[in-house]
């Protein structure tokens, strides 16, 4: 039987998934690698560890699930997290670790650029918000703060570009991952000269730009032998995981948006046009030429739930974290919408869209003597989802949508999905239970389109079967809106106090 394999290089894990040609799941396997924080603002990963984990997981997966069944692999499609930087020396070897999206050391470089005229024009053409996450600012940071490493660097790669280079010897970066570097002109799909200049590099320092459908010539001989793959198999460089998840969630065309709730989260729409936001709150990334995924990311989604569960969950009976979270969610269901007047701002790790304030911090507001643990639980959930709503609201200033598709680990809890429907006052669709995540599914659809199974990505996206399980309750919606109004005001009002408390925390 023919099959398609996808490889996701995520923030903390590699996931390999195989589909039959009807998008049925044949199997999937995962391997993790750590993120190191050598200093408070640093988030780094070991590129060789990512590579070897990928190789190991892929090899075992093929040997256990694919080769014994004599499945014939038609293509292998990659995707990866955005915003990573690996510096490569003149021998092609990495210097130091990879800086990943959550690495925050370039925050001053970002702020400096954001407040300048140059920054405004760079945002306009690159579509990437001017934030410490963007490789533009990370490379600028290296230039200003670690000049020895900067000078020794011959190529600045993304993690995926590095993995592909290791496997095939080609230095390439797809338009999608490139569009999240802050260095790419997303209208012309060329490196943007002003941005390169700001970072102090030339296009020779970057890999060659290719389409997300590009296929490197072949795997190196040794890897073909190791993995048992012949050289007819099409390797597709693929896109970023965010774009892939949007396609895989079946969100394509007008009137739809997707909400992803993993450790961090995002609200996204897809369109033929770039959204130009005067306040620079929205990202625009390229999925394929002429298709843009626009939206806003939040730092505080699943990570906030996990934080809460670790601090306040009941572990006395040997519960695992997931079990503990499930129990908390049951208790949250016992409280009515609005948490009886308790409100939560979830900015434990600062916030990106729409307020883009690294100093923002968590707040419980409105606490009174009657509030119990269960109110805190519900308020925490509602606060996180209010943050998603404020991203959605910002997007709707530019482009309306009438339905939502929810995906990611935390979107599958019915209580959360219902609260999303009520807060947004929109029907929420979730994918029919197929066992595969949206990123892998997006990889399948992209590959299937490339080999001609579908005429276009539009047609491919139609194939994703969604069910509308959650309809909004208008009464709940109006309750939520009364609280959201206060939520939104607090986020703005506390700007100076956030700054003051963040400074104190820095000194500790």
């Amino acid at each position: 039987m023919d099959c398609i394999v996808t490889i996701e290089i995520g923030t903390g894990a590699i996931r390999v998934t195989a589909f039959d040609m009807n998008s049925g799941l044949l199997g999937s396997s995962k391997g993790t690698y750590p993120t190191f924080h050598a200093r408070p603002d640093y988030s780094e990963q070991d590129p060789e560890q990512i590579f070897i984990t990928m190789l190991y997981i892929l090899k075992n997966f093929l040997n256990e699930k694919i080769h014994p069944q004599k499945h014939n692999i038609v293509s292998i499609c990659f995707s990866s997290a955005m915003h990573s930087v690996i510096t490569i020396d003149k021998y092609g070897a990495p210097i130091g670790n990879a800086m990943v999206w959550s690495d925050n050391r370039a925050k001053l470089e970002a702020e400096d650029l954001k407040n300048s005229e140059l920054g405004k024009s760079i945002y306009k053409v690159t579509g990437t918000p001017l934030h410490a996450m963007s490789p533009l600012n990370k490379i600028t940071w290296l230039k200003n703060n670690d000049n020895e490493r900067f000078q020794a660097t011959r190529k600045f790669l993304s993690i995926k570009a590095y993995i592909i280079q290791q496997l095939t010897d080609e230095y390439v970066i797809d338009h999608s991952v490139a569009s999240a570097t802050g260095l790419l002109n997303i209208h012309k799909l060329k490196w943007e000269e002003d941005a390169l200049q700001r970072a102090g590099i030339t296009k020779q320092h970057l890999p060659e730009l290719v389409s997300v459908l590009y296929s490197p010539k072949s795997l190196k001989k040794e890897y073909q032998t190791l993995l048992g793959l012949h050289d007819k198999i099409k390797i597709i460089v693929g896109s970023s995981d965010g774009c892939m998840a949007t396609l895989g969630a079946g969100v394509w065309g007008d009137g739809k948006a997707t909400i992803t709730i993993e450790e961090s989260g995002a609200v996204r729409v897809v369109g033929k046009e770039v959204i130009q936001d005067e306040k620079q709150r929205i990202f625009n990334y390229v999925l394929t030429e002429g298709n843009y995924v626009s939206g806003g990311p939040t730092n505080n989604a699943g990570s906030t739930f996990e934080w809460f569960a670790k601090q306040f969950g009941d572990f006395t009976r040997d519960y695992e974290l997931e079990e503990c979270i499930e129990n908390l969610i049951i208790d949250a269901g016992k409280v009515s919408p609005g948490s009886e007047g308790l409100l939560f701002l979830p900015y434990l790790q600062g916030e990106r869209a729409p307020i883009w304030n690294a100093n923002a911090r968590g707040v419980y507001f409105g606490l009174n003597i009657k509030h119990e643990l269960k109110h805190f639980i519900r308020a925490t959930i509602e606060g996180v989802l209010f943050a998603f709503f404020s991203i959605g609201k910002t997007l709707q200033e530019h482009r309306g949508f009438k339905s939502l598709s929810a995906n990611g680990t935390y979107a599958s809890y019915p209580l959360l999905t219902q609260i999303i429907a009520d807060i947004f006052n929109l029907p929420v669709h979730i994918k029919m239970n197929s066992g595969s995540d949206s990123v892998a599914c997006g990889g399948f659809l992209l590959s299937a389109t490339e080999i001609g199974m579908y005429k276009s990505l539009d047609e491919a996206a139609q194939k994703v079967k969604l069910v509308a399980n959650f309809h909004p309750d208008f009464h709940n919606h109006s309750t939520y809106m009364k609280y959201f109004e206060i939520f939104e005001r607090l986020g703005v009002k506390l700007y100076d106090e956030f700054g003051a408390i963040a400074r104190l925390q820095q000194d500790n």
Partner: protein
Amino acid sequence: MNQNVLKRDCKELHAFPHIIEFAYKKNNTIQFDSLKRETSEFLRLYYVIDGRFDWIIDNQHHILYPGDLAVIFPGQSFGGEKDLLDIGTVSWLHLGLKLSPAGAMELGRWTRLNEGECRNIFKILLLNPTPVLPKVKEAATLFQTISTELLKQEIGFTARINQTIDELFILIARQLSRQNNARRDFPKSFLMLEESLRANLSHHWTVEEMAALVGLGITAFTEKVKNYTGFSPLNYLINIRISEAIKLLKRQDVNVTDIALDTGFYSSQHFATTFKKLTGYTPSEFRKKNITPTE
């Protein structure tokens, strides 16, 4: 409760050459210079039963309350903040340690803990950033048992005392590793473990050692690692070894045998076999073929 302060060479300690001093002391008066800051070459355990004690341990100020236990290593300084013993009840044990030929601390022949267990216990103790363990309630009974047995010297007291000291070590090690980790945050504990593995990659780690550092039993540890990482503990370790080896191979200045030993393989043969199995290359082929000049 009877109180006693027993020092080496007193008759009660004749059967215990490893015990340098044991005390169970109720202190009612303040005496100057009763607890001067000193460094010693033995291990010191202090357990607070009653009162509040201001101590300087390894140049850090600590305040101990009932139930708190301080562990002071050979070479660390220890004494009262004002060089005196505060009012209250405290029990202590000074224990002579042996040094193995490799320089590791060992308890000696009296213990029933096996060599691996001892090694793990000291590893956990040494990795612990603070010398004070809060609220070790179970330790109260153990110190009391030692005290009573020493005074009464009834039949079997030697075995009972040595066994109780073993129990004390087990209690401390378990409490420490649970405190560091526990179920709440396995990813965090696992990251700490990964950092320890990387810091000492040439060591031939066993699953038992790794599990002990995370504060779990071997079975639970193996299962959790598999769930969390997708690999068995030993395969995960091999991943780290090979990642480091790749880094060293890409630099031209380290020879393959040194890389093998530095990254924890038994021999260059063992390294070559594992490397080939995982990457499809022998180490020297990899070195030759994976240099891709960027210019």
